[in-house]
């Protein structure tokens, strides 16, 4: 089956007086594995349900394969959805659950039997056809939910937090399987999650949502390296953010902020205006004890160690710089002791690791 595109044009939705989605325009390429990422209440699940047809009183258009489906009820959309709760019917067996959509489409019995067997094999549940959902593990239930949806060979696959009910280890394994399955079937897939790691590891592109608005759309690396605003910078990975003003005089660029005071920035940088924020990731900071010689083209901050968390691969220090705390991730080498609280340190950030956020 040729994969199809999904397009949203100026979609908005309100529940009563509450505006849940605002002017959403988005296009998902055929065969793409696309994530809607955001905190709870950001509207991502509502948007997914809207694509499935469960919220139909929206304004704007939903196009699937170029056709406006806004007026089509859920049962005629041919959009498969895997629910967060899986929504497996407890009164039906695994096979009956999987066959349901095909029976509704009135396919010949032989065809139904063949396709149910095929999808159950695809998700490696062959042999469990006669079980009821209550007799399956969480991971198996999730695979039944996926099989039941794939059985109807939907044009688009929608996944609503499909991994959230699995334990941590199974979640990592399942997301890899999900990615492989998606590539193999080459089906346009939209995946809702609040977990940035999940979105980044599985999806081709991500739309970050907050308060019913799409904040940024891009590949995982684009979002991480070039966040367009404070929200995206903070939500995708950890970040140090400081608001202040920029002044350029005599070939030097200075940044002055109430939090960290006056800092010299590498002169090569181009701030977006007189006011704005600078952002840099904890792992991009080089931490040195004492006061080493300055390096050309780096931003330099001095402070003292205030706290630490040992996370195995790295140590996460909290460093007091003027009136603010800066988070620094320092790669851990075997046997290296951590720096005690109160140690004076110098933080260096390379020019290319510093991002400006306008406003």
């Amino acid at each position: 089956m040729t994969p199809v595109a999904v397009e949203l044009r100026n979609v908005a939705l309100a529940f009563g007086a509450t505006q849940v989605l605002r002017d959403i325009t988005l296009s998902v390429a055929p065969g793409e594995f696309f994530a809607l990422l955001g905190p709870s209440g950001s509207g991502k699940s509502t948007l997914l349900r809207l694509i499935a047809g469960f919220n139909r009183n929206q304004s704007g258009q939903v196009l699937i394969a170029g056709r406006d489906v806004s007026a089509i009820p859920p049962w005629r959309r041919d959009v498969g959805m895997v629910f967060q709760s899986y929504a497996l019917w407890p009164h039906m067996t695994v096979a009956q659950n999987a066959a349901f959509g095909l029976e509704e489409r009135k396919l010949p019995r032989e065809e139904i039997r063949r396709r149910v067997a095929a999808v159950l094999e695809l998700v490696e549940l062959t042999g469990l056809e006669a079980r009821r959902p209550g007799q399956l593990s969480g991971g198996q239930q999730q695979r039944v939910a996926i099989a039941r949806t794939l059985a109807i060979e939907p044009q688009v696959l929608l996944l609503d937090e499909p991994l959230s009910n699995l334990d941590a280890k199974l979640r990592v394994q399942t997301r890899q399987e999900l990615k492989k399955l998606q590539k193999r079937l080459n089906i346009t897939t939209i995946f809702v999650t609040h977990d940035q790691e999940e979105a980044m590891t599985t999806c081709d592109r991500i739309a970050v949502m907050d308060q019913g608005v799409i904040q940024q759309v891009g590949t995982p690396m684009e979002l991480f390296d070039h966040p367009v605003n404070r929200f995206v910078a903070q939500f995708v990975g950890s970040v140090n953010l400081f608001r202040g003003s920029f002044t350029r005089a005599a070939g030097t660029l200075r940044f002055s902020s109430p939090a960290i005071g006056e800092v010299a920035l590498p002169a090569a940088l181009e701030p977006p205006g007189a006011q704005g924020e600078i952002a840099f990731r904890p792992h991009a900071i080089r931490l040195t004890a004492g006061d080493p010689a300055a390096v050309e083209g780096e931003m330099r901050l001095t402070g003292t160690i205030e706290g630490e968390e040992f996370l195995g691969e790295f140590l996460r220090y909290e460093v007091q710089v003027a009136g603010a705390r800066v988070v620094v991730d320092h790669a851990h080498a075997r046997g290296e002791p951590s720096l005690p609280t109160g140690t004076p340190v110098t933080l260096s950030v390379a020019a290319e690791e510093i991002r400006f956020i306008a406003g």
Partner: protein
Amino acid sequence: MTRVTPGIVVIALAIAAFLLAFLVVPVVTVVYTAFSNAEGGFTLAHLRAFAEISLMRESFANSLYVAAMTVLFASLLAVPLAYLTVRFRFRGAVVIHTLGVLPLIMPAFVGAAAMQLLFGRSGSLNLILNDAFGFTVPLMEGLNGVIFVETLHYFPFVLLNLAASLANIDTSMEEAGQNLGSSGVRLFRKIVFPLALPGYIAGASLVFIKVFDDLGTPLVLNVTNMLAPQAYLRVTSIGLEDPIGYVICVILVLFSIAAMGGSWWFVQRRDFAIQTRGGVSAPRRRLTPWQAVLAYGWISAVMLLVLSPHLGILLLSLSKVWSFTVFPEQFTLAHFATVFEDSTRMIWNTFLYCGLAALLDVVLGTAIAYLVLRTQLPGRQLLDHMVTVALAMPGLVLGIGYLRTFRGVDLPLIGPLTASWLIFVLAYAVRRLPFALRSCMAALSQVHVSLEEAAENLGASRWHTVMRVVVPLMMGGILAGFVTSFVTAAGEISETILLTSRESLAPMSYGIYLYMQSIAGRGPGAALGVIAVVLIGLGTWFSHRIVASRSPHDVPGEKT
């Protein structure tokens, strides 16, 4: 959990002895009588004799037919209402609440006479139909009348159980069905209804039992070719020695147990154990204009039907003459005067019997709840199970069992037990004990054990702990249990008809029944009925208030 002390054992044994004497022995006596010959040996002769009487075979078939048809019609009324109120944005809670309570505050047999006047052969509806279209509907003819009256009375059991069941279904279950291509009636049939089946079965089996066992409604409608009326007629006309009445009792008990057990088994067997995990519940759907017209039309029609016995009985109680007219033509308060002149004794008796029975119920209920939930007494669950058996015992069976078991028992001060006020109290108490016990158990399980431990830690003995901490904290549940017992006992008729040995002992429900036997008595009967409904209605309202004001989150140390 408390240690088992001699005091606890004595209390448990006393309760067990009470249940044995007033529940187990009477029922066993009935069964024994049905299967024993003159010498006391086992025999199937009575059963054979029953099967050989064509009236008995007919009665058996009729009882099954009436119960089954009532379940069918009750479902037709209740299923759309339940779905509507649970799934659509709608003033549903109010409707369900009103529809659920209205029929229950008036015993079915009370409204039956009024229904004759509204829907009978020359009742209001048929007079109108005949005038306008030249035909009549035999709604109240024979078995139809029983089915009609019982349907209106009992459909709330299906409605309330099904609505609760529907409300518990994760909406994503339904949405998954829609997502895979199902909608409308198919979706309801294949997904929604099967998932709500436990609630439906619970409600439907309850309706079946209640109708199958009912004595008052068929008697008031003068339908005698059903099992319960036959048992009553045999025992009262032929006498306590006639074995056929006992055979009928055994059949009633077996069907009750089978229906209850069957519904329990069904719910157990189905694997509904899957728990929902954080499914987003969708907002209720909005009705389209057409759907709204249909929905409100349906609800209004049902409301009108449900209210008709109430309106009918009120009109009847106020009418001077009501015969061959759509509505009464002259109104009077004379019937109420008659009732207050002749029947104050009956009203007093109702308060006495029902009050004492309800008191007995909550005392026993509290004690059993404490024994089961708070002690490690071996076999304590048995008390709970014994009480639950009372649920399946038709009033008729218990009544006959009492008459048979306790004949000749003469008590000091009270006299012959079966001809005393005490027999009413006992009979009422035993059959309402399951409800009072549930109420007490629920209340006690809301009280955290640490509250009791704190009292004991501060030096209170167990008895003081129970009286000063446990009982006050359970008071909401105890009061609700008291009112439920009182109200249902006040409307009881099966046991009452059997146990009323002389008029001076009769409670209101018997008075209504007696008045309704004659045309002239219908007015005063209706007046007494109105008084009973007001009484029961106030009681029900009061118990709802108690339960509402004592909601669990007000109780400190609520179990998590």
